[in-house]
């Protein structure tokens, strides 16, 4: 026996005396071997985390890894590049002092001597850009730029190249503070902030009328200066972003780290395309929406920190697909609420109420992913703010209800729908079988009543759900009605799952009673002999989703498995519903990749069954949804998933997902070259 064998055998003897006896017997005279093994056993029995966790790579020393990459050298060269200094002259401009520095370049206050003597702002672009192309793009817009004449726009004056071949831009000098900073420093109230924001909209509108899109609206490009004690916002850098425009690639992100990342938070979804095709005035409206969001809540819609840390593909995905929390919700969950409220001259209690409703709608309309649903013009945005300030009804409507409704109709074309059922299904994604049952009750009184209550109290789940619970308590509803009511209650609870109310005993009570109702429903829908029926299955499915929604994945998962009995797996509709239930549960478990993975795999089982009974078209669609969830929830785990799936259409689909987008992108690049 060698050292390893003796060690292993001894380790399996728990009793110390027996172990010692064993060692003495096996090692015989070899005391060195014995002490070596004893030492090893000692270490092994005092086992800690040693080597159990994966090693990490540290970014502090990323140079060790990146040094081969010329990109790194390029960066280093940028840092060491010759810098222009005050006192130097560039063309007719004498540099006076540096007033700013960004990822794109350095800004100087400069003195123009000819043809007029005046002070200007001069921005010198950092090396690494094609000067000719930059200037050509600027020249193309110069005519339009000179036509701009607006008190809230800093005029673009000139552009050229330095002796070292770097492009520079000259514009009207604005001695101001970025708008967000100005508002906070002066503790402007929400109303004052809005009043300051309106002229910004008008300025951008003016530019749009001259055919100029800014493309890079953000606080540092909207400076507030005081003239005669009046705060005047001025939009700077018109024409610059477009002239400097580079196609958005991982490279541009990296080489201009600070700059582009800083801008990403204000970048519209259509700008966050690798092949950014058409950017128009509505992109500016989106950026204005971000700015408004920040002025109101103190943070950008997508968390800065999160965007900064996100991997490239993830970053684009967030901007393109993720809906930010509405401003009032963001503010209620903010950790620095007292500070935010204070700098807006209000109280933590009041600020949410002030923003909730109209201002939420105005902001969210500006931020719509679909630019067709944003305000058509900046004036439209300004007018709606004006309406809010003068207590008139705003034109922006709730983006969620109308929009979700439309989406739902699109998804379920051909179905005729009762209002009450829609309200529930919109929020819950109920399955087809459930759906058909519910359709039958659209005329029923309680359901309608519940829907009315729900609509009237939209946003206040406690009130809605309590009232609906009361209807439930009357206990004179049909089973199907009860099911629908349950879903309504649940949807309101679920909508608020992030709110602090979650800790309250009412919340717990509500959850318990929801489960109890499901149990009763299921029990009542068994047949005379106590066997399950189609109805009891539907209710069980619904309960499983409900369980998952409220975090009881163990029971939910067991239920999903239990529902997959051979006798139930012959109906296409039912398989489809089960698959969707898995998808919904997986979504609920998105913070727990293993669980989500489990649900998704189970869902795929159902879909495979569906394929077997020859409903390929629909199954493919559903499968895509499943895969989408997998891809969304766990990129790393998806690797294992892919291995498990091993089918071309699936892989193609995942490649089209933003998480794996770079693979797909490189394909399209290939075609271009």
């Amino acid at each position, binding site marked *: 026996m060698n050292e390893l064998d003796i*060690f292993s055998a001894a380790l399996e003897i728990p009793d110390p005396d027996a172990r010692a006896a064993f060692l003495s017997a096996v090692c015989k005279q070899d005391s060195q071997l014995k002490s070596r093994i004893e030492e090893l056993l000692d270490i092994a029995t005092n086992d800690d985390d040693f080597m159990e966790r994966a090693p990490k790579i540290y970014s502090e020393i*990323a140079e060790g*890894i990146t040094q081969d990459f010329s990109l790194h050298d390029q960066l280093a060269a940028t840092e060491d590049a010759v810098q222009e200094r005050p006192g130097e002259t560039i063309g007719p401009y004498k540099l006076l002092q540096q007033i700013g520095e960004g990822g794109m370049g350095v800004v100087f206050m400069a003195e123009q001597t000819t043809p007029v003597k005046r002070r200007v702002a001069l921005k010198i672009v950092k090396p690494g850009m094609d000067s000719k192309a930059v200037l050509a793009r600027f020249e193309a817009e110069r005519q339009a730029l000179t036509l701009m004449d607006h008190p809230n726009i800093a005029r673009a004056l000139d552009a050229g190249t330095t002796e070292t071949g770097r492009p520079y831009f000259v514009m009207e000098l604005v001695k101001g503070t970025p708008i967000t900073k100005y508002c906070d420093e002066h503790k402007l109230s929400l109303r004052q902030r809005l009043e300051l924001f309106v002229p910004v909209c008008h300025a951008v509108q003016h530019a749009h009328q001259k055919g100029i899109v800014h493309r890079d609206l953000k606080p540092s490009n909207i400076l507030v200066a005081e003239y005669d004690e009046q705060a005047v916002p001025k939009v700077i850098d018109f024409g610059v972003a477009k002239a400097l425009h580079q196609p958005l690639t991982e490279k541009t992100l990296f080489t201009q780290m600070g700059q582009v990342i800083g801008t990403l938070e204000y970048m519209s979804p259509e700008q966050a395309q690798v092949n950014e095709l058409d950017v128009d005035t509505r992109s500016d409206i989106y950026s204005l929406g971000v700015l408004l969001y920040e002025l109101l809540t103190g943070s950008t819609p997508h968390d800065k920190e999160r965007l900064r840390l996100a991997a490239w593909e993830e970053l684009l995905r967030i901007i393109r697909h993720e809906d930010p929390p509405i401003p009032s919700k963001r503010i209620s969950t903010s950790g620095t609420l007292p500070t935010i409220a204070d700098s807006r001259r209000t109280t933590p209690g009041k600020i949410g109420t002030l923003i909730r409703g109209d201002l939420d709608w105005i902001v969210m309309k500006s931020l719509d992913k679909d630019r067709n649903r944003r305000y058509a013009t900046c004036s439209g945005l300004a007018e709606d703010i004006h309406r809010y300030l003068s207590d008139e009804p705003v034109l922006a409507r709730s983006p969620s209800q109308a929009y979700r409704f439309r989406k739902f109709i699109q998804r379920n074309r051909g179905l005729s729908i009762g209002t009450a059922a829609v309200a529930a299904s919109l929020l819950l994604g109920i399955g087809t079988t459930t759906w058909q049952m519910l359709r039958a009750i659209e005329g029923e009184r309680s359901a309608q009543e519940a829907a009315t209550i729900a609509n009237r109290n939209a946003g206040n789940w406690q009130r809605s759900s309590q009232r609906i619970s009361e209807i439930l308590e009357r206990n004179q509803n049909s089973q199907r009605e009860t099911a629908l009511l349950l879903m309504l209650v649940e949807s309101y609870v679920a909508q608020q799952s992030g709110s602090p109310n979650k800790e309250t005993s009412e919340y717990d009570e509500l959850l318990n009673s929801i489960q109890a109702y499901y149990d009763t429903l299921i029990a009542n829908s068994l047949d005379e002999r106590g066997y399950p029926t189609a109805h009891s299955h539907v209710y069980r499915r619904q309960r499983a989703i409900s369980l998952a929604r409220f975090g009881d994945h163990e029971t939910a998962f067991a239920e999903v498995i239990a529902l997959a009995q051979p006798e139930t797996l012959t109906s296409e509709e039912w398989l489809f519903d089960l698959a969707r239930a898995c998808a919904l549960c997986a979504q609920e478990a998105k913070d727990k990749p293993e669980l989500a993975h489990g649900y998704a795999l189970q869902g795929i089982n159902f879909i495979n069954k569906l394929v077997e009974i020859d409903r390929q078209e629909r199954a493919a669609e559903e499968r895509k949804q499943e895969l989408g969830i997998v891809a969304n929830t766990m990129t790393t785990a998806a690797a294992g998933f892919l291995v498990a799936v091993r089918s071309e259409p699936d892989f193609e689909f995942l490649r089209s997902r933003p998480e794996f987008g770079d693979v797909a992108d490189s394909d399209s690049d290939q075609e271009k070259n």
Partner: protein
Amino acid sequence: MPEVGISHWRAQPGLAKEPTLQACQFMGDATRILSQIEQGDAAAAERLLPLVYEELRRLAATRLRREKSGQTLDATALVHEAYLRLVDVNKAQSFYGRGHFFAAAAEAMRRILVEQARHKATLKKGGSHRQVDADPDLFCDSEKPDSIFEIDEALAKLSAQNAAVAKLVELKFFGGLTLEECAAALEISVRTAHRNWAYAKAWLKREIGKESAD
């Protein structure tokens, strides 16, 4: 898709778009090499390592670039991502084939981590570049670059004594495989894998303890 070899890829590093393209082309290469290995071409395995090595470095570098200072990457996640990127998962691989990939990836990852630890040591001595202030709390226990270095040295000694056990450590620790996966890749029983892992950990810990006591 044109065939592009490693030499070409080395000649034109840097442009961030390119590695992605390369990953696509490598995907074919890696898959082909794996199937050659499966068909018994022993020399093919040698061609796999540089490919995986480059991809892992590239992945790490692009990821780290975007992270703020102080961020870390999990080696295991990188290895699995590399697998996804390099191997055409549509072409069925036996687990044996996957095992070859992970063996190469584990060795590549070990080299990268050791190289990184060396670099760290240079920085500490104030050698090249600027001084890096790292938060000491970030480095705990076995994650510390220093101890990667020590683990690697100890592992070399273990390898001289029992190469199979050392290989297991490489797969488990640097490649991020579970012991079950290690067992399949090394064609040993799961029970043996567990036994060997316990032995290797104790052995390495003792060895490292000895070193630092000296």
